[in-house]
Each structure stands twice: as structure tokens, then as C-alpha cells.
């Protein structure tokens, strides 16, 4: 980017039409497709079971910030993903800024920043599993779920398949994680049976 022929102050000045003009506040990431479809229901409201759980966790650590990862897990368990609104809620409860919370969320791969399929299928394809035929397992899942492409959600919204880095069960190749369930020694032949078990 080449600097225009103006003073620095002029260069960084916001355009005249930028800002809260419609009474809804500044444009945020939420207006770019990460928004909730319905009004956000707080997960950690005072008096709720999750809030009690959170308060109990706070006694284990000397700082409030240390509860950030567990708090994000709670939100994800309740809602299936971590939206910008959820990050703002967690930030308020733990006295952090939403931007800080977003920085942490984006670092860790297990927090979903978008709604995900009902059954989120992660197949380990790192070298040891790869040598034992993990790619065949990925293909079988893509074929039998109807996803056809890595990362996309199947037309019925039930399945998404991704390749994941080492799941830490290399001797039980190929391990597959479906939401919170861990399945060991998966072969392409076992895939239809595993999927049938999910649908029921």
C-alpha cells in the first residue's frame, strides 16, 4: 500500500459515511455472516446452572481470565458453536474485552466459530494414520455421508467431514472423532455401520 500525499492524520481519518448512522452501532463481524439468526439467549445468566458451574470453577484459579477456556466450552456445549454474541457474553462475565476473547477463540481449532453439522466428523490423517490407510477412510465418509467435499455440510445438514491433525490414538489407526465421541480402528468397511449408528 502506498501512502497518499496527505498528512498521517488525514490518511487514517474515517470516511464521512462510516459509523453508527442507523442507530444500530458500528459495523461488526456479526454483520458479515457470523450473526445469530434468533435473538441471543445468554448461557451464563446469573442463577443459571452453567453460571453456578462457572462460579465453582472460579474458586480453582487465582484469576478470572483462567476460566476463559472452560467458559467457552460451556457455551459450545449449550449452543453447538461460539458466536460473536457468545464471545461478548463470556467477555462481560470474565471482565475481558470481546476482542481479547475472539483472539483466544481463533487460536484454538476446537471452538467452532460457525454453526456446524449435527454430526461433525473428524478423521485423523497425520503420517502414522496415513500410512495405515486414513485417506481411504476419509473417502468412505465423504461418499456415504453425501458430503463429497471436505469441509462442506451434507445437503440434509447432518454431516460434515474434515481431515484433522493427530488425534493421539496412532496405534488404533484410523481414529475418528464425531462430536464428542472417539471411535478407534476405523476402516472404510466400517463407515456405513458407524453412520447408521449415528442416524438412530
Amino acid at each position: 500500500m502506498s501512502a497518499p500525499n496527505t498528512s498521517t492524520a488525514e490518511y487514517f481519518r474515517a470516511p464521512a459515511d462510516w459509523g453508527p448512522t442507523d442507530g444500530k452501532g458500528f459495523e461488526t463481524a456479526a454483520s458479515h455472516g457470523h450473526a445469530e439468526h434468533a435473538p441471543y439467549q445468554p448461557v451464563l445468566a446469573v442463577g443459571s446452572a452453567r453460571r453456578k458451574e462457572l462460579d465453582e470453577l472460579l474458586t480453582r484459579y487465582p484469576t478470572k481470565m483462567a476460566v476463559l477456556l472452560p467458559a467457552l466450552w460451556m457455551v459450545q456445549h449449550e449452543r453447538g458453536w461460539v458466536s460473536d454474541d457468545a464471545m461478548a457474553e463470556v467477555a462481560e462475565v470474565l471482565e475481558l474485552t470481546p476482542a481479547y476473547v475472539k483472539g483466544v477463540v481463533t487460536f484454538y481449532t476446537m471452538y467452532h466459530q460457525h454453526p456446524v453439522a449435527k454430526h461433525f466428523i473428524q478423521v485423523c490423517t497425520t503420517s502414522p494414520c496415513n500410512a495405515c490407510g486414513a485417506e481411504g477412510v476419509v473417502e468412505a465418509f465423504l461418499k456415504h455421508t453425501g458430503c463429497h467435499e471436505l469441509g462442506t455440510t451434507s445437503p440434509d445438514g447432518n454431516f460434515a467431514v474434515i481431515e484433522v491433525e493427530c488425534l493421539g490414538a496412532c496405534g488404533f489407526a484410523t481414529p475418528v472423532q464425531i462430536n464428542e465421541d472417539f471411535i478407534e480402528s476405523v476402516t472404510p468397511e466400517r463407515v456405513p455401520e458407524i453412520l447408521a449408528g449415528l442416524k438412530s
Partner: protein
Amino acid sequence: MGYPHKPHNRETVVLSKYFGDPEAATLDGWKKRGGYVALQKALTMAPGDIVTIVKDSGLRGRGGAGFPTGVKWSFMKPGDGKPHYLCCNADESEPGTFKDREIMRWTPHALVEGCAIGAYAIGAETAYIYIRGEFTEPIVKVENAIKEAYAAGILGKNAMGTGKTVNVWVHRGAGAYICGEETALMNSIEGRRGNPRIKPPFPAVSGVFAQPTTINNVETLVAVPHILNNGADWYKQWMRADNPKSTGTKLYSVCGNVQRPGNYEVPMGFPFKDFLYDLCGGPPEGRKFKAIIPGGISVPIQTVDEAEASLMDYEGFVANGTMLGSGGVIIFDDAQNIVKQIARAARFFAHESCAQCTQCREGTAWTTKILERIVAGDGTHEDLDTLLDIGEQMTGKTICVLSDSCATPVASGIKKFRADFEALIKKKRVHMVPAQVA
């Protein structure tokens, strides 16, 4: 070793004795198997005496670096008026390693006991077990064990009726290989991005929450109760006569193209050749071993002839040009494309780089792109030199060793299996020449 196979008669089962035994995961079952005797004993001893016994036993860190555990503990100064912390590293993410997972699944109370003893020995009232987020079953098992231990008065403000305070908590990670690096792990517990910190200050001076902290691997802590129960000399019975620096037993995770993958526990100094063929059953039918990585994917890859000559302890592997690392033995047979597997390893590191340091962020990505290009048949002969050059620039220049870990399998792979790389590159040339002639 037990699960999923019966222990081999040449194994020495100490830590893995109860793998596959569901009763061992319960408090009653664990007590029946001699559990919490060592903790009861430890809480009546002076912390310094525990550190001395562990030092004498020669126990070394089982997570990869092999630092003497007792010496690490002795860096913590009890009575300095600061809160101390113990962090147990259960973020087992090194490809090829799955021993801690089995320890937590089958013997979670062993880990709770080890953590409690470790915490008491370093003057800490709180221990955090940092378990990687993907380990849903081990997390449940360890949390249940902790719950049982609190209910039975084993943990808490009056641990085992001795008036001492020992708390043990689980902290769940959320999917980041780098959080297995000790300073990144502490950042993650504090609720930060898992970026490694510059050392010094070392954790014993300023660790988690800026207080003196010790970080130990699961397998290290699980060995401590056995040492307290049986004494340092008992633990030293397992070592090579000519190498007193490595003592005790070690769990090895075996995976890849092998007859019997799984966890095997053998004494220090065990011959690697016997291990590969006798315990693990050798290569799959009709195949031959081609390449072996003995300590998780970050250590140098070896040809079979080189690997077979190793004796299995910290010094034995180093003398043979590789490392014990985390004990994750990865085996590739002659049906595998070694270049593809190394490219896959590089992709792992590119994905897991925290992107703090330029050498790592750019180097891991660049290495992956070049390797995948070679695998696709579009490589050039200059690529190999470029890879080695990038690897050199990535080594010893960053905050943590993830960058070095990516460069190691690539550099050693090119050195040991150059013909495989060149075969892929030549294919391209053969394809090009007739096209030009025509």
C-alpha cells in the same frame, strides 16, 4: 502392556500393569491394587526428602526432553512465601505417541496420586492436569477419579487426614499441538492464546500466574508413587550396566505398519531390534520395514539397519543419531511413499505453528508446499537443496522448538532416503523429455 494385546513375556509391566482392567479406574479398585499408599506416606515426609528420593532414582522426564525430575523439583524453593503450582502435561499431541491416553483411561487414580505427591514435594497446594481437548474419554475418567478422591478425603484441605492442602484439577485444552510446550501450556491455563514464552524466566521462577511452577509429563508423575513405595534402588534395577543415566521402565507407543501396534513397557537399555521383531511382531505379512522414527515425529527418521542397532534409552538413541523423544515409535513399510509421509508430517507442523516466529510460520508452510509439489510430481532438483537450506534457517532460531521439529524429519528424510525423493523428481523429467522431442 496389556491393552489391546496381552502383555508380552519380555515386557516389564510397572505403569501399564492394569491396562485393560476396568476395575482399576475406580477408587476401590485402585486401593485394592495398592493405590494411595505412597501418597499417605509422602504426606508424612518432609518435601525435601521426597525430592531426594526421586533424584536418587534417576527418573527423567518422559515427555521428550528427558530432564532429571528430582533436579527439576529441587529448583522450587518451599517457604518463599509465594504460591507454587504443579502443571501436569497431558496434552499428548506428538504424532505417534498415545501412552498418556492409555494411562489416563485405565489408571486415572495413578495420575491423581502422582500429581498429589508431586505438588506436595514442590510446596504447591494446587496441581492442574492440562488434557488435550480431543481426549474426551480420558478427561471423563480423570475427572471422575478426582471427584472420588475429593469425596474420600484424599484431596482437599485435609488431604488423607494429614492437615495438608492438596488440590488437583483438570483443565481441558481446545485443540492446539503447541500447548504441549510447557510455556504455551501455562499461557493456555491462564486463559490466553497458546503462544510459547521466551525463556528465561524459567517456569520455576515465573511460571503459571507468574508464580514458581513445575511442569511434568503424565508418565513421569505416574512413576513417582512406585518409586516412593519401593525405593530409589528398586527403580535403578532397570538400566544398562554401562549407562546409569537412564533408569526405570519406559512406555513406548508403536504405530504405523507393524503386526501388533500398541503400548509396550520395557526397561531402559532394551535392544530395539528385539523390540521391533519380538514384541511388536515385525512388519505386516509380505512386507519389510523401510523407515523408523523412534520417538515421535519430531525426531530424526532412520533406515531399518540404523534403527535396529539402537539400545532403548536416552543415550542409546542419541548415540545412534536419533532421540528417545516421547517414545512414539512410527514405522513405515516398503509399500509406503516416504516422501508423502514426510510431506504429511510437515503439513502437521504448518497447521500447528502458533505463527509467533517468522522462521516457523513461513518455514513450515514453505516446506510443506515444496514437499507436496515434489509428491505431485512437479519437483525440481533444486528443491532438495532449498528444503535443506530452509531447514537450517528454521533450526535454533525460534522461541520454542516446533520449528526445529519440522526441519528434523525433513532434513533427516532427505539425507536417508534421497533416492526416494529423486525418483519422484526424475519421473517428472522422463515425462517432459519426450514431449520436447516430439
